[in-house]
């Protein structure tokens, strides 16, 4: 539990993060009623995978990176595929491109529905968890579960298996779906589109803490499409770069209190925000028509600078993903060949795509045998760490006089709004053996 934050000179650790060894913690120090220090430390698995990928054949990479995260395997797979295609100098055709967007839609549906209904909505409705919420709001929870299930089924169908999709590969897909098989999803996707719009109305009416911050929003950007797979990276502060310039503009820093690297703007050392809120703020006009209409009608002024309202941005994107998935299956044409023939060559390539929780950057160098010589993976959560700490620094001074349970809940709610990717490459259960 947090100790009393309002006492002068207190050092506190919010141990909702620290009960499980190795998964991190939140450290806050106050002095004379002022916040002196905020340190967030969450275990981060992708770094281990960078070393693991060295020496592997490039075509093994997408299947390995898909296992970094149980919630966003498509994102890890897609960033690696695009980066490796850049290294090999190939660009798959429009049908493959649309299928990849469909795969991404499925992942956003699954991840956003889970986060909105099962993780974040209980915060605003005053429930400890979705289990307590389910007793009084079974309709909403069942709606969330069905929304998620459809995403799972689509991902399962397209990817071969739901959690770690295997059908996408460098150059295309191992196997592409038949048009008539995709058409079977139409009814479910239509139901989902309606339910997603209901979701926007549901979350926009939640009571949000009164807090805003001065963010630099960062997202992938495409001239004609809502950002998913490609290609430039833009920010609300005027950045507009190719992925190849990413490491010049954004810097990863070691910080003493964390095993994870923290990303900042390289020139001024400032934090920035990636994820649904940044994407909607920067790409509102590129949302599908119904999603855009829902965003504009929900009563929230965009650009929105309240991080707690990230749940509304997620709901808008949930709507977009359902709407775009429907549009893709309507127009889908089976490609003549499922994947390009690849000529192996030495090279380097990078790409950024939009994981459900934000920009995911990959860079690979491969040799003339097609073996990986170096890999770099910058996940969205590490880009948001500094921003999370800045938000906590901004939020805490205004709430230090509140009861500690309330402060803890507010901190949890804020961190949850980022949906941080936490230690997701392993899943073991921790048992306590009580011998009485």
């Amino acid at each position, binding site marked *: 539990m947090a100790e009393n934050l309002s006492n002068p000179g207190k050092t506190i650790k919010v141990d909702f*993060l620290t009960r499980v060894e190795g998964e991190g913690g939140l450290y806050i120090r106050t002095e004379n009623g002022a916040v002196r220090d905020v340190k967030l430390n969450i275990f981060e698995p992708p770094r281990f995978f960078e*070393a693991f990928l060295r020496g592997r054949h490039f075509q093994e990479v997408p299947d390995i990176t898909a*296992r970094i995260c149980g*919630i966003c395997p498509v994102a890890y797979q897609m960033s690696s595929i695009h980066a490796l295609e850049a290294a090999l100098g190939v660009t798959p055709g429009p049908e493959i491109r649309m299928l990849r967007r469909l795969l991404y839609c499925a992942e956003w549906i699954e991840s956003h529905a889970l986060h909105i209904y099962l993780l974040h909505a209980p915060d605003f409705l005053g429930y400890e968890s979705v289990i307590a919420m*389910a007793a009084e709001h079974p309709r909403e929870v069942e709606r969330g579960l069905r929304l998620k299930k459809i995403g799972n089924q689509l991902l399962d169908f397209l990817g071969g298996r739901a959690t770690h999709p295997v059908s996408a590969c460098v150059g295309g897909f191992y196997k592409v779906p038949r048009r008539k098989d995709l058409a079977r999803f139409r009814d479910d996707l239509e139901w989902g589109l309606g339910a997603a719009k209901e979701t926007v109305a549901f979350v926009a009416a939640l009571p949000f803490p009164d807090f805003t911050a001065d963010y630099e929003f960062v997202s992938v950007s495409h001239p004609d499409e809502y950002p998913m797979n490609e290609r430039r990276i833009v920010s609300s502060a005027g950045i507009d770069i190719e992925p190849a310039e990413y490491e010049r503009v954004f810097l990863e820093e070691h910080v003493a209190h964390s095993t994870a690297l923290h990303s900042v703007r390289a020139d001024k050392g400032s934090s920035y925000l990636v994820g649904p809120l940044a994407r909607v703020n920067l790409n509102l006009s590129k949302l599908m028509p119904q999603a855009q209409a829902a965003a504009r009608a929900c009563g929230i002024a965009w650009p929105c600078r309240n991080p707690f309202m990230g749940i509304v941005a997620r709901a808008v994107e949930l709507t977009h993903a359902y709407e775009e998935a429907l549009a893709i299956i309507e127009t889908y044409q089976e490609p003549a060949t499922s994947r390009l023939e690849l000529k192996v060559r030495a090279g380097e390539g990078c790409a950024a795509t939009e994981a459900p929780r934000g920009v995911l950057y990959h860079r690979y160098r491969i040799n003339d045998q097609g073996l990986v010589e170096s890999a770099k993976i910058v996940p969205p959560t590490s880009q948001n760490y500094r921003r999370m700490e800045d938000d906590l620094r901004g939020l805490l001074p205004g709430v230090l006089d509140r009861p500690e349970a309330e402060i803890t809940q507010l901190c949890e709610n804020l961190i949850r709004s980022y949906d941080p990717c936490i230690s997701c*490459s*392993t899943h073991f259960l921790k048992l306590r*053996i009580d011998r009485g």
Partner: protein
Amino acid sequence: MSPRLLVVGCGNILAGDDGAGVEVVERLVEAGVEGCQLCLMPSGGVDLLEMFPAADVVLFVDAVTSGAPAGTLHLVPLGAAADSSGDEDITAPVIVRRAVGSLSSHGLGLLETFELARALGRHVPRVILLGVEIGEVTPGAPRSPAVEHALSTIVQGFSRLQALVVDPNSSLWRSARQFPPEDDSFPGR
């Protein structure tokens, strides 16, 4: 009609011993085990909920850490069917909640899923956890010999374990049990 048994393997096969649950199920598929449905769910979590309607009994195979020697096997019953007295606590006190899980969509675990099903009034099958005590979970690490041995134990004697799991009167459902690596009393060993 015999109870419908679903065997679910959880874990990441690229993270050393963490993949024990997935490996067990893959080996059972290879061995052509009959009389149950076998399924992989690398991340576990809330998707289990969608599998509950198809099962009367779920054997959930996962890597666990309790401080016991690597290769120790645990059998932990998680509760009775939903149509029992109703006041039985179906959560298992020996499974520690992943506190960090509540912060992100990565963490809705077995317990939470179980409780959510009950809160929604959904069909809740009997669930028993078959835990494999792990040693090494670093991504890319090989499986430790003790865990490898434990996996063979499970797969070789699976028909005996299967018979006990589907029998609601078997001793497996009475209390959690632990089988150290050298213990010969694990069902089927």
